[in-house]
């Protein structure tokens, strides 16, 4: 009998987006496709025979031009020919075979059948538009609000039968220390009786407490199924002005628990914003340290969805700002007011608000004027105190000594401007490496006006074309970890051989590139996403490119966060084997886009001299 080869099914089940298709369609595709051995000598003939197919590479390496876009270097797991099918344009498919191999040709009819699957369709439509597939970027959520109810409701509901007496119901509520009771018959929810009902409908009117509870219960109460979120619960409670909401099983509608106003506020208290505001309430360094350590634990237990990871960096940066301000206050309580105006500056990831668990502290002090020896000693002690205690709070000391405790980073405003002039005058590669971090800066405490003055004086200097050209060349020094044939290049000496340093090999490159465009446009905000949102088309990046870079940046950061939280590590060595099939494709697409952005920046800012 006709049959399907298991190896083709296995291939489809492991390759995104085919893994999204139901097994019946996978089976059909596996049964009605052709396998070709594509080599230099036969490629013209074979491609012509299958020109209306989607080509999926199983082995081999090919340089392919299949639409108006650039030549793509493809290898196993990559696709070509879809632009022709989607655009319905008779594009020529030109293939240069670098290494012959097996290609699966999926007939047009089956490709379009698969396009009925939204995830499959989105993958190929996005691939065609050369954009990263990122369905959830726009829905960044506040973590606690979107927790499903089954994660919150842990106890079976306190219940009585409809003919049980009012007194029995009250007794059960009292024993169980709850303020409401469900009235259940044969696992069906009939009603609810609350403390308020007992007060208003029984005590106030002198009703006989031996009457059945069904006489005073609220019939057919509002409820939610356990797959709904806390946010849904808040909406229903506000809409009906109630404090108790039964939670039912989504399928059987059997009551599984109760959510109350108190539960909601408990969740709210566990919300990271409350954890952060708790930091502000610390009275001593020890208290601050113990509260600070709750933040990583909170993130590890609560950040589960993509949107959570998007705000995690911001949360951590804001928490670090608060810790800094608290520590400065503690120091001043012991040593008195500062002898002059100062500003505590933060750099790098804290400035950009994309800190991760592994981020170390990068900070400096900007002083109103040159300090006297005594004034200098005050700031030295302040800096030491803050840096050492930030480390106790979990924000590591900086290996590169980019900290206010380093005397070279406690400059007066004039000295800082002079330093910026020196950078611009001789932007050697080493110098750029050294001061790149100072170009993403933010004021976290003290007199913000000092920092604004510094920014205003640095702005024209940092826009100079020679300086920008040097920055562009430096941004092009690091390559994305993809080989010529789009295979991942793994980090050397990592514990896991399939690791990629997403910070060094991708996020940092985007940060460098976006900083370049931002400086050129005179933008002073430090965040990469904020910079991209504030750039205009005149900067040289189209709206589509900027949007795509935001998506890529968020995607990469999600992967870093997920890696750190799920593997309980602080590095950025994301393991490719931890990624889903689609994420691997997305990551490759992200790297390719970063590479193109690097080339474009070199062309724009340094006349193509990389």
């Amino acid at each position, binding site marked *: *009998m*006709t*049959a*399907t*080869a*298991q*190896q*083709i099914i*296995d*291939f489809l089940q492991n390759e995104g987006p085919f893994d999204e298709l139901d097994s019946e369609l996978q089976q059909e595709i*596996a*049964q*009605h*496709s*052709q*396998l*070709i*051995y*594509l*080599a*230099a*000598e*036969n490629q013209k*003939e*074979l491609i012509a*025979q299958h020109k209306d197919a989607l080509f999926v590479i*199983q*082995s*081999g390496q090919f340089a392919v031009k299949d639409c108006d876009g650039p030549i793509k270097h493809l290898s*196993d797991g990559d696709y070509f020919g879809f632009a022709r099918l989607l655009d319905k344009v008779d594009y020529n498919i030109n293939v240069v075979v670098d*290494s*012959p*191999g*097996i290609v699966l040709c999926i007939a047009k009819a089956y490709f379009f059948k698969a396009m009925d699957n939204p995830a499959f369709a989105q993958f190929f439509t996005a691939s065609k538009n050369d954009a990263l597939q990122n369905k959830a970027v726009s829905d960044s959520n506040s973590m606690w609000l979107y927790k499903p109810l089954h994660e919150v409701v842990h106890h079976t509901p306190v219940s009585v039968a409809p003919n049980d007496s009012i007194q029995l119901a009250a007794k059960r509520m009292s024993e169980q220390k709850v303020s409401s009771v469900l009235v259940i018959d044969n696992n069906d929810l009939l009603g609810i009786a609350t403390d308020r009902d007992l007060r208003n409908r029984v005590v106030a009117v002198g009703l006989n407490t031996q009457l059945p509870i069904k006489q005073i219960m609220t019939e057919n109460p509002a409820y939610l199924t356990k797959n709904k979120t806390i946010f849904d619960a808040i909406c229903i409670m506000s809409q009906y002005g109630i404090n108790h909401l039964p939670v039912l099983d989504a399928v059987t509608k059997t009551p599984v628990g109760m959510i109350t106003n108190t539960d909601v506020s408990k969740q709210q208290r566990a919300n990271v914003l409350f954890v952060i505001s708790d930091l502000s309430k610390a009275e001593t360094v020890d208290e601050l340290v113990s509260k600070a350590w709750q933040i990583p634990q909170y993130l590890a237990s609560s950040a589960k969805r993509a949107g959570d990871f998007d705000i995690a960096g911001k949360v951590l940066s804001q928490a670090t700002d608060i810790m800094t301000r608290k520590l400065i206050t503690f120091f001043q309580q012991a040593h008195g007011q500062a002898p002059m105006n100062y500003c505590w500056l933060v750099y790098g990831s804290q400035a950009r608000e994309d800190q991760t668990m592994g981020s170390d502290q990068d900070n400096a002090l900007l002083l109103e004027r040159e300090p006297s020896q005594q004034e200098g000693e005050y700031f030295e002690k302040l800096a030491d105190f803050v840096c050492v205690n930030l480390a106790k709070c979990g924000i590591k000391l900086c290996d590169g000594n980019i900290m206010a405790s380093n005397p070279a980073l406690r400059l007066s405003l004039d000295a800082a401007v002079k330093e910026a002039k020196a950078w611009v005058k001789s932007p050697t590669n080493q110098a750029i490496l050294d001061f790149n971090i100072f170009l993403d800066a933010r004021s976290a405490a003290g007199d913000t006006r000092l920092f604004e003055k510094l920014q205003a004086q640095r702005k024209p200097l940092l826009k100079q074309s020679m300086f920008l050209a040097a920055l562009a060349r430096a941004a092009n020094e690091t390559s994305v970890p993809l080989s010529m044939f789009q295979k991942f290049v793994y980090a050397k000496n990592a514990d896991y051989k399939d690791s990629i340093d997403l910070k060094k090999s991708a996020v940092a490159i985007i940060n460098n590139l976006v900083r370049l465009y931002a400086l050129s446009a005179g933008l002073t905000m430090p965040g990469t996403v904020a910079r991209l949102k504030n750039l205009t088309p005149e900067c040289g990046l189209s709206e589509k490119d900027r949007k795509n870079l935001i998506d890529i940046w968020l995607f990469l950061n999600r992967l870093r966060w997920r890696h750190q939280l799920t593997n309980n590590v602080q590095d950025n060595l994301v393991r490719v084997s931890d990624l889903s099939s689609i994420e691997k494709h997305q990551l490759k697409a992200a790297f390719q886009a970063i590479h193109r952005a690097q080339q474009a920046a070199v062309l724009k800012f340094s006349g193509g001299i990389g």
Partner: protein
Amino acid sequence: MFEFIKKVVFGQFPIHEKFKHQCYPQLPLLALDLELTDLNTDIAKVTSIGWVFGQNYQVDLASAEYDVVRASGDLKQSPVIHGLTAKDIAQGCHVREKVKLLEQYVDSHVWVLHNATLDMRVLNRLWQALSLEQTSVTTIDTMLLEVYVCEKTHGFVPSSGVTLKSARKRYGLSDAPLHNALDDALSTLTLLNAQLYALNKQGHMNLQELSHTRAIKSYKLG
């Protein structure tokens, strides 16, 4: 006379005349694999059989055939290795149906097998047992072809051997599920494409010219 002696001594027949002068891309191919209960071909029973057709570096997956064969007696460990259950085997088709089906392709296709001797001996026994008309079939043996390639390249057969898996690895072909007759047949055919491309990039050599590899043989059936 010489051909006769060769047939008697080696049990081999000449390459089918109509294929002799056809270049590789023109040859109609049938890749075949039998899963057996024993390596001893005198007693081995067929537990499953799979084949797929190809030509000109292409494999038509719609042509794939696979059947579990009804078998009785001591099956040893083989069905376990091939992932078959006793129920599969009890519900399988009769080997006669499959062999009769294969008979149609004796003259029309060159059969491709990995270690042809083993499967062809079993088929020969079945041919006789089923009293089918005596015939011969032209085969390409990917295992012998790999031996030729290894000896030519390294002067010896590497310790990794010439199993289907190790041979595929040499051409950068992915691992496939082994010990399933259809998957092995498909893997053999895609391996042959890679082998013959490496040997004969332009595809100009005909089957007779390829016979110096000792991988092209005809086997008597019946």
